[in-house]
């Protein structure tokens, strides 16, 4: 009995999420594959439990496509090779779209409960947890508001709450604050960093893995434990950088260099 326990120990260090050799091709207009667009080429990504990984890359590099594939949403018409290594984990993800996706006919609290309902959680329990989270997400007092009555920042926070509530082990966030103005976005990112979604070192191993897609290097450095840089289309992993505790400037320079290998003069700004 004790030996079996010890042999099980390494399995707890299994990744929360892993893909290898992921290639996504969108069919082109031409015949026989002419004009096909390769969105992602041979991408490998491994995310540990309690790890917050940011994926950065230029616009159109396929980072949103990567996140969709991880979420089990196959882009329509696309050819995907290199499935997630453990396909059973597909149902363990919760994906948050770039736009909030709030349902206009549900008030804020029922909107927050959508994910929990899909996960088949008990309504009363989920609602109690949601009410508690409304406070932590700065939405207290707005439980009965309609989505259109909320500000952009509140809508995004509500969408994030909806994504977190089911307690899936992997959160996939697609530029959660990308549509907000610069000041609100900075404030949101500060708040998100304080929220500690990955639950580092939380007791009871309640932590989870987070994959955040962004085009903002500073956002990535602020929030993530590790930053993965994708190249221009077709997207390939060109840098996989753990975020250092100090010496952020150097990491920032390295990331900007990887993002824009030609124009280093731009990277210095």
């Amino acid at each position, binding site marked *: 009995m004790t030996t079996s326990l010890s042999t099980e120990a390494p399995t707890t260090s299994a990744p929360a999420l892993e893909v290898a050799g992921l290639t996504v091709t969108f069919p082109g207009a031409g015949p026989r594959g002419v004009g096909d667009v390769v969105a992602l080429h041979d991408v490998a990504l491994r995310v540990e439990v309690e790890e917050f990984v940011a994926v950065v890359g230029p616009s159109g590099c396929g980072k949103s496509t990567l996140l*969709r594939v991880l979420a089990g949403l196959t882009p329509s018409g696309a050819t995907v090779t290199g499935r997630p290594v453990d396909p059973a984990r597909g149902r363990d993800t*919760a994906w948050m779209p770039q736009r909030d996706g709030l*349902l206009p006919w549900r008030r804020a609290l029922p909107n927050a409960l959508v*994910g929990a309902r899909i996960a088949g959680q008990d309504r009363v329990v989920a609602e109690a947890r949601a009410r508690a989270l409304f406070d932590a997400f700065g939405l207290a007092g707005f439980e009965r508001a309609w989505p*259109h009555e*909320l500000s952009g920042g509140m809508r995004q926070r509500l969408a994030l709450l909806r994504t977190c509530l089911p307690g899936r082990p992997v959160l996939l966030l697609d530029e959660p604050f990308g549509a907000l103005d610069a000041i609100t976005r900075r404030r949101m990112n500060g708040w998100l960093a304080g929220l500690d979604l990955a639950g580092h070192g939380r007791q009871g191993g309640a932590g989870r893995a987070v994959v955040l897609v962004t085009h903002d290097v500073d956002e990535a450095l602020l929030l993530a434990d590790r930053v993965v840089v994708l190249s221009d289309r077709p997207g390939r992993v060109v840098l996989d950088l753990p975020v250092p505790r100090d010496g952020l400037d150097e990491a920032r320079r390295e990331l900007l260099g990887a993002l824009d290998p030609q124009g280093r003069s731009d990277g210095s700004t």
Partner: protein
Amino acid sequence: MLVRHRWRRLVAPTVAGLVLLVGWEVGVRLSDLPAFVLPPPSQVAVTAVEVAPLLGTDVVTTLTEAALGLLVGALVGLLLAVLIAAFPWVSDTVYPLVTLTQTVPTVVLAPLLILWAGFGLLPKVVLVALTAFFPVLVAAVTAMAAVDAEHAEMVAGLGGTRRHQFWLVQLPASVPGALGGLRVAATYAIGAAVVAEYLAGQSGLGVFVQRSRKGYEVDQILVAVALVAVLTGLLFLLVDGLARLATPWQRPSSLSLTSRPGRTPA
């Protein structure tokens, strides 16, 4: 600016209507038309006051037929729309046929319905329902087909199945569309009931019109016509009000300003 807007929307058509009525009155009096051809509006008004106490049961009958028919038609239309949205084969086989049947104006079917369903309430309710279900069906199907891909994807991204997408996104998204169709249907309902009553029945505004026609009482017919217009307007306002109550998230901005003061999200 709002006052001027109101003036244009309310006062101007009222004045125009009054001018027409005065023209009618003066024209009839000057030309000496007999009252069994065209009575002046003043006589119609006098007749309206006279017959008003007698019209109660007729109005109740016609309104009952219209309301029941609308309800049945809306339910059938919504149910069929759901089936069409949920099962592609229903959409492929049933929808074209249903659309084809609309080439037959429903009032043409009234004699058949009376043959089959008798002289009572049923054939009228069926006729109103037949008239009402199509606008509801088309509006609901269109609304479900136009569902925001963003919402369906959000549900899928949280691990939702197609069933979840249907219950959480498609069905609620169809409600405003179906209610819009019901609003259109409400304007047909009383007319359809009255036409069905022309052919057979013991009471109802259509029966009243037929009786008046036999007595050459044109003033009474005109009273009934005016009453049908007023009832149709009231029914429309009622359906419109219910639709607003049922879709509170679709408040026009002016309403939400009054209903929720001091709620300025930060």
